[in-house]
């Protein structure tokens, strides 16, 4: 009964940040945001948001291996996700591909463009940034 309605719309709407690591920075207080925010958390109405591309470099703050996935990731489990602190400041959630390297809190990672999941048997393949140990 429950499906994730139109994941594609949610993907395409945010395609620039998801594919290009394009976030933004508030010129009023110099806080960088990824994913981008409409309004700066610190400055509210005084925000001066400008777009900014992130390097994708960062380090793992925490991580976990998911063994019980939601419907859309049925065929992907188990998979590892983490919270990564990007070099430019913000923390962001993402998948972590271990690539045979044992990861830990503090492991340096870099974002790469990878397959995320296939929507049904003949459905489209979704891509997304994922982090890999450097």
């Amino acid at each position, binding site marked *: 009964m429950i499906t994730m309605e139109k994941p594609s719309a*949610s993907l395409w709407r945010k395609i620039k940040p998801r594919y290009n690591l394009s976030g933004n920075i508030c010129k009023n207080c110099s806080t960088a945001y990824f994913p981008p925010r409409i309004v700066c958390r610190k400055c509210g109405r005084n925000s001066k948001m400008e777009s900014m591309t992130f390097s994708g470099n960062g380090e793992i703050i925490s991580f976990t291996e998911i063994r019980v996935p939601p419907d859309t990731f049925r065929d992907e489990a188990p998979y590892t996700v983490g919270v990564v602190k990007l070099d430019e400041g913000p923390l962001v*959630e993402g998948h972590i591909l271990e690539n045979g390297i044992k990861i830990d809190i503090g492991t340096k990672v870099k974002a790469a463009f990878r397959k995320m999941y296939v929507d049904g048997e003949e459905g489209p393949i979704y891509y997304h940034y994922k982090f890999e140990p450097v």
Partner: protein
Amino acid sequence: MSRDVAIIGVGLAKFGERWNAGLKELMAEAGLQALEDANLKSDDVEMLYGGTMASGRFMGQEHVAALMSDQLGFKNIPAVRIENACASGGSALRQGYISVASDIHDIVVVGGVEKMTDVTSSEATTALGGAGDQEWELFQGITFPALYAMMAKRHMYEYGTTEEQLAAVSVKNHENAMKNKYAQFHKRLTIDEVMKSKMVSDPLKLLDCSPISDGAAAVVLAPLEIARKYNDTPIKIVASAQASDTLRLAERDNLTSIKATSIAAEKAYKQAGVTPKDINVAEVHDCFTIAEIMAMEDLGFYKKGEAGKAVMNGETAINSKISINTSGGLKGCGHPVGATGVKQAVEAVWQLRGDAGERQVNGAEVALTHNVGGSGATAVVHIYKRAN
């Protein structure tokens, strides 16, 4: 300018897998018990707030507050649904409190309900995932256990909290649930059994996670000045506070505490004129074992990093230093999400009246309830005392 508010009646529908009960049956079971407890006629009720998180996704049923009102035989009164993820119940209670305190209504019923077991666990995981940031968490397959698992792993890293200490939360809450006839589980656990249960999202195992549950809870509120007309032992709500934060976990100040909890708690202690040391009994939001440990710290019962050891030492068992989750908590009593925040108030009332039976905390004078939505984007704290 605002009036004192009391709880004059409480009711619970048994929590668990209630295959023969739908939303209507669950709500009526809890609601009628609360009306009886308050010696009320259906016609006395002026307003209803109903908390439910995802009845639409679980049951295909929206518009639940009007349904609740109708099922309880209330005639055409205003009824409003409150949705605040897992804090829907606590948020509904706070709205009820505000409407009585502000002299808009006298007799207000606050209900909470969730019917979760008609869908598969992966469907439930998806529905509950909506409490986080859909675009950046659920969209990437990041589940609720995963968000709390990442908080747990960071808490272990920063403070040396152990998996055994997490397991001890579950063991204690199951022990308390043994003494609660409304609880989903009546099964004693050992630390070893929790440690050996199936890994869900490391370090959290199946027995670190609250279950999928059906259940409902209801309380009746009235201005304190007329409360004794209905009930000999009205319980006064001495504080009602709430705070919000970012939906997305990674956007918060840190992963090892829930800031909305600390903010709401600080306001609540101030309103009530009490300190954390004055609290005898607390129902806290243990959706995962790590959540109880963070709650103990964020509510000011323990210093950061000390809560895990305290649970392990038995300091939070019934009639020890501070009795936490005497009902069995979300872990042992069950977690029908919309009902949980209201159930916590029901347990606080029973404890303060001295009606908690085998799980009674001796000399319980001040009780606190703490209800969290999502991974911490909403926190609601209430404090209660016996009305003198």
